[in-house]
């Protein structure tokens, strides 16, 4: 049953078969995409018609590969930029929130904390539509009342960044907050008794201690942003992010270039995961 207990061979084998099937279930879509990205066919599915790199490099009338598809490259770039700004914003505010909730005492702290972690259980679509409604409201108010052209408040790049940040900061708060719980408070007290200000002790003592968690939180925010669809779709303007672009292509015009771009994403994520594994093992 557990490592230290003996088991009947039948139990052991059937358990292992179940686990094997589960992991097959897990990797099957990834492997399917990876293999079919190299299929010499104009359709996304089987049958296999031989190996080709067309879906990466071709630029002909019938086939446009990933690296020749300017729209697709543009949406990847939009996603990278969105994820970059969103992660910086989420990491900074999320870390500040972690310091606030772990180290300060104030009225309504419980209520405020409730709102800070609520995005964890609010469906992404609800966050998307409520931010869309309120920003449109503010935008049209500014325009009607003061004649200010408020592009910032209409769907577009910065609204997507803000919308994703609204729940990204929650994840940072949880990751950094968990590490802060292990922090030895006497270190801060020592700094304070040596005449450091509160801010100095946070900056020179607490933040360096939190650094691994902060880096981790940044990476997590980046990945969350890069793959987000549910909130983004409502806030996106004329420049789609990659998931939004993929969605409309899957619905309306799927070619194997979708397999190619998905394969690149899978490859990239797997590399990040392997690096992460080795880095953690060294520690």
């Amino acid at each position: 049953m557990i490592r230290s207990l003996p088991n009947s061979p039948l139990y052991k084998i059937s358990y292992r078969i179940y686990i094997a099937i589960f992991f097959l279930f897990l990797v099957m879509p990834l492997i399917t995409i990876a293999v079919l990205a190299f299929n010499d066919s104009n359709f996304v599915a089987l049958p296999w018609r031989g190996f080709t790199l067309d879906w990466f490099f071709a630029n002909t009338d019938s086939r446009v590969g990933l690296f020749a598809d300017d729209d697709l490259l543009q949406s990847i770039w939009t996603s990278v930029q969105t994820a970059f700004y969103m992660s910086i914003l989420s990491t900074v505010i999320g870390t500040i929130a972690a310091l606030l909730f772990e180290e300060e005492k104030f009225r309504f702290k419980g209520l405020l904390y409730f709102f800070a972690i609520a995005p964890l259980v609010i469906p992404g679509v609800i966050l998307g539509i409520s931010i869309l409604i309120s920003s449109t409201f503010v935008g049209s108010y500014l325009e009607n009342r003061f004649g200010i052209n408020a592009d910032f408040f209409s769907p577009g790049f910065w609204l997507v960044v803000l919308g994703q940040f609204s729940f990204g900061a929650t994840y940072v708060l949880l990751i950094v907050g968990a590490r802060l719980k292990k922090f030895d408070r006497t270190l801060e007290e020592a700094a304070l008794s040596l005449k450091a200000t509160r801010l100095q002790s946070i900056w020179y003592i607490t933040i360096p201690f939190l650094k691994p968690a902060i880096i981790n939180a940044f990476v997590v925010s980046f990945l969350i942003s890069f793959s987000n669809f549910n909130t983004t779709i409502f806030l996106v303007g004329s420049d789609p992010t990659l998931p939004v672009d993929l969605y409309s292509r899957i619905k309306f015009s799927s070619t194997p270039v979708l397999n190619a771009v998905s394969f690149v994403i899978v490859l990239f994520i797997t590399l990040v995961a392997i690096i992460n594994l080795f880095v953690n093992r060294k520690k």
Partner: protein
Amino acid sequence: MHKGNRVTFYILIVPVLLWLVLLIILPHIDLFISSFQVQNDAGDSVFSLDNYKAFFDDKIYWLTFLNTLAYAIGVTFLTFLVAFPVAFFLTKVVSRKYASFLTLLLLIPLWVGELVTIYGWMIILGDHGIINEFLKYIGVIDKPIHLLYTDLSMIIGLLYMSVLFMIVPIMSTLESLDDSLIEAASDLGASKWAIFTKIVIPYSMPGITSGSIIVFMLVIGDYVAPDILGGKSSLWFTEQIYNDFLSTFNWNEGAAFGFLLLIISSVIVWVALKLSGQKLERVGQ
């Protein structure tokens, strides 16, 4: 309080208040207000209950709502059944060396993103997909079985994208379960079934609750899997909200539907927390 401490306090609380008030609290208040408004002929917003009336009058809306709710509960339970043996395997059975590798493997589909993995399932389940071609190849069938665009394919997609969120919380509670408890029960002659139902599952209840809440919310709020993998008959409530916002531009009705979704899911989460005696804070850990 020391003067410098007060300044630090304000430096910390102002950005957090801006985040929560401007991006969480006010938008939800606006959603609430907007759901009680309609555009009159002059294009002005006026108070009305029509959006909610539409929900209760039109059978398709509340049927979809109930359908989504029932599926979300069913998928959550299914996810638990699939996830529990995996979580137990990774924490208690397999050697630690493989456990970290397998846990990493679990995370890859999550970071790859729902859209890509759901697209993968679309290829696997299609009429010319892996499963049909394989069955044809070994001669079990000669015409493809219709798998894609059915409730089955939708359930597979929902299970796939949410199973990790059940495994991880269960693993984190099982990690603190002392192996000697299981050994003691086993030495005293308890059957495997008894050990699972009397020790392991009760012990991992906090993890199961967290996992179930997160999975339920993910499934009920999901759009990609029902829309891409589900058939025309697979009614999903978020699809109504998407239609209101992105195709028919009836934002007020969409706001009402969104608010209903938020209310019912909050109630279910609240009931789950009460029944299990857990706090929302714990769900995130």
